[in-house]
């Protein structure tokens, strides 16, 4: 008996101690793993459908209420600008682009301050772009859209010749937030998404929120990722809906944080007729879809500038564009030429 007891006294407590050590180690490690996981920010996503495009919102936060509030605010902004800039539908209680285009008598129409600001910004861009960026080309937009919807034929020379009154001087804005109607047909397709996205950008900055990635058709607004680092962003291949453009044989991938990439190209809305592709970005000078390149992308800190600038660059040759962007020191650009070559501005290196 005494021998047995001695045996128990010696070995079992030792085993117990080892068991406890074992359990403590396991629990400790599990605790540490949990802790690391809880420190990792959670992903919140939402897909919206405004401005004739899909808006993908991705936020990283450890506060679900905060994330949902932010997503709600972002949705409000896009909805607001969607309604203001819609040229195909009217909304109750709002004088929007549809109202402006469909008011046939010459009168002063009161518009929302935000719409007024977009129009003012766009008219200024007409002059900055030497007339290439023109919001008063609604008549041309409609003519081409008619053919695009039918997917057959192109406007005749006569039809194109008859289109007149695209002069930006017809867009008259008064200081009391009114616009002169009767003589304008606006199309804000080249600026609305970028403008709204910049409003979202300002909102996110105002609340000091950094962890976001928002994709709005041709515009990507990137903050920082869940680790506070950069996002890897590709540029859609105009000839392959599931691919990204290649620089030589290598896929072009950009490492970006706290900036905006905006692309303009003829691959989003187009139709093919007689072996030719006819897309939606119309050159106001030739009245035809611009054909200088397959796409152009700009990296900026301002989504409004990015949208207006990428549209403008798409309407001039690559060479002219390279010269043109020199007046915007912090802007970089990537052209994808008609023969599938990548042309980069000098500062793109730092994003690769």
């Amino acid at each position, binding site marked *: 008996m005494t021998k047995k007891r001695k045996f128990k006294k010696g070995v079992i407590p*030792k085993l117990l101690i080892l068991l406890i050590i074992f359990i403590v180690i396991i629990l400790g490690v599990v605790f540490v793993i949990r802790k690391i996981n809880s420190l990792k920010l959670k992903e919140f996503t939402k897909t919206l459908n405004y401005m004739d495009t*899909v808006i*993908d919102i991705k936020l990283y936060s450890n506060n679900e209420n905060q994330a949902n509030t932010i997503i709600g605010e972002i949705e409000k902004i896009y909805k607001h600008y969607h309604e203001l800039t819609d040229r195909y539908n009217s909304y109750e209680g709002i004088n929007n682009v549809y109202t402006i285009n469909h008011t046939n008598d010459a009168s002063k129409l009161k518009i929302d301050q935000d719409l007024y600001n977009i129009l003012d910004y766009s008219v200024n861009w007409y002059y900055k772009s030497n007339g290439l960026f023109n919001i008063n080309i609604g008549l041309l937009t409609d003519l081409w859209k008619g053919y695009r919807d039918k997917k057959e034929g192109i406007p005749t020379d006569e039809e194109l010749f008859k289109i007149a009154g695209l002069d930006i001087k017809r867009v008259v804005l008064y200081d009391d937030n009114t616009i002169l109607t009767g003589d304008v047909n606006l199309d804000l397709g080249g600026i609305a998404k970028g403008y709204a996205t910049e409003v979202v950008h300002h909102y996110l900055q105002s609340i000091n929120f950094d962890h976001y990635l928002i994709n709005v058709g041709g515009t990507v607004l990137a903050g920082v990722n869940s680790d506070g680092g950069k*996002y890897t*962003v*590709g540029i859609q291949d105009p000839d392959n809906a599931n691919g990204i453009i290649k620089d030589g044989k290598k896929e072009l991938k950009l490492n970006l944080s706290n900036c905006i990439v905006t692309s303009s190209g003829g691959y989003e809305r187009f139709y093919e007729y007689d072996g030719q592709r006819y897309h939606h970005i119309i050159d106001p000078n030739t009245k035809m879809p611009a054909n200088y390149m397959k796409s152009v992308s700009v990296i900026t800190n301002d989504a409004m500038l990015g949208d207006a600038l990428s549209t403008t660059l798409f309407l001039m040759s690559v060479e002219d564009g390279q010269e043109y962007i020199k007046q915007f020191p912090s802007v970089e650009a990537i052209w994808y030429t008609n023969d599938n070559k990548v042309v980069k501005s000098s500062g793109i290196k730092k994003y690769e």
Partner: protein
Amino acid sequence: MNKSDIKLIIIILIIAIIVLFVIAIIGNDTSKSALVYYDNNLVLSIDLTDKSEQEYIVNGYNGPVKIIKKDGKIKVEEEDSPLHLCSRQGFIEKSYESIVCLPNKIVIKIVSSKQEELDTVVR
């Protein structure tokens, strides 16, 4: 403590580490699925981890939208829209890819636990 005690401690530590590795591997699930939205509401979730071929029909704005799953990829086979952009797009499988059919108000997104080489694509 004698030599055998130390041996025992080492053995237990090794077991503990192995158990942790097993937990880490099992915990790291490789889930991947396609989420189908109609007018921003999730209407269908399709598991893409198995490679089987399957057909799904969801109701779009213009009528039925036929979706096909194959080899862990997904595509829209048939839908009614003016340009048929989404059925012409073909298969997608990466989390940064999506199929969008605006006329039908249908959006298909891929969610994957795997880290992709791209976060998003400027369209």
